[in-house]
């Protein structure tokens, strides 16, 4: 366990990730589920950016007199992922609106009940 303090950022991110997962599993409200997915998503982004960090490095913008930069590749991947994440959120929310129009509720259990009645 000699690397103990160096791993704490990862552990914080894991805790955040699990909170997102908990919100998705435990809550029946569809909007709350999407919020949970967002929390999970942001923690995955944080995980990637944490891996890109170099001790003593600066942002990867080339300049005179700077020798050490953080890794630009994860930054690019996460830039793409953020935008895609918003696109999927938009699609999910559109589905929620559609479900609300069809069933009049966005609670998981009430939708199940309405399904059973028909």
């Amino acid at each position, binding site marked *: 366990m000699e690397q103990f303090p*160096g*791993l704490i*950022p990862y552990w914080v991110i*894991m*805790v*955040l990730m*699990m*909170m997102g997962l*908990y919100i998705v*599993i*435990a*809550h*029946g409200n569809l*909007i709350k589920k999407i*919020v*949970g997915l*967002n*929390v999970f998503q*942001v923690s995955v*982004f*944080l995980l990637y*950016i*944490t*891996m*890109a960090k*170099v*001790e003593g*490095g*600066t*942002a*990867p*913008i*080339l*300049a005179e007199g700077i020798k050490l*930069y*953080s*890794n*630009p*590749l994860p*930054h*690019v991947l*996460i*830039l*793409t992922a*953020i*935008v*895609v*994440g918003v*696109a*999927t*959120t*938009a*699609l999910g*929310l*559109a589905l929620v609106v*559609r479900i*609300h129009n*069809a069933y009049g509720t*966005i*609670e998981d259990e009430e939708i199940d009940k309405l399904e059973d009645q028909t």
Partner: protein
Amino acid sequence: MVIVAIAIARIHDLFAVVMLTGIFSLLGAAAYVVMDAVDVAFTEAAVGAGASTVLMLGTLALTTSKERPAPAKNVISALIVVVLTGVVLIYGTLDMPIYGDLMAPIHHHVADHYLGGSSAEVGLPNVVTSVLASYRSYDTLGETFVIFTAAAGVLAILGQSRLPRRQHDYEDSEKGMVSSPEKSKGSST
């Protein structure tokens, strides 16, 4: 951020939850700046904290803003699953290189080439931009396709079916939803 996440899980007023999600994204953006990812921080603040909050508020306006508390058996089974997964994930991090380690394998594959060669090969000072637009431009092209597909999907879901009930809501939702992919497109470039 952990505190905000707990608040998101506990509060049942969805309006407050959406606002807290925006705060969560902003805190994430601040964390990105601390870890040298300034471009990512810009995008997160604009798209994550801005656009998706607007989207969620639009959805709240069209649906309801109260949620019912989760049933107890859901909570217990969810806690068990979450704790188990968390323990496995934390066990997995034990093998990872420590935070900020220059010798980590991730920093010694293509990253060296990007940092060393991009000013000669692409000619831009910002390495993130040259990787995004040049070395991995197919990635970015694919991303644009994804956004287009999402916009088309939103239109297909909300635009087509016109039930007699709540017709005016469809009009609103089209306005709210369609503008969003445009927005995210703008901020991605």
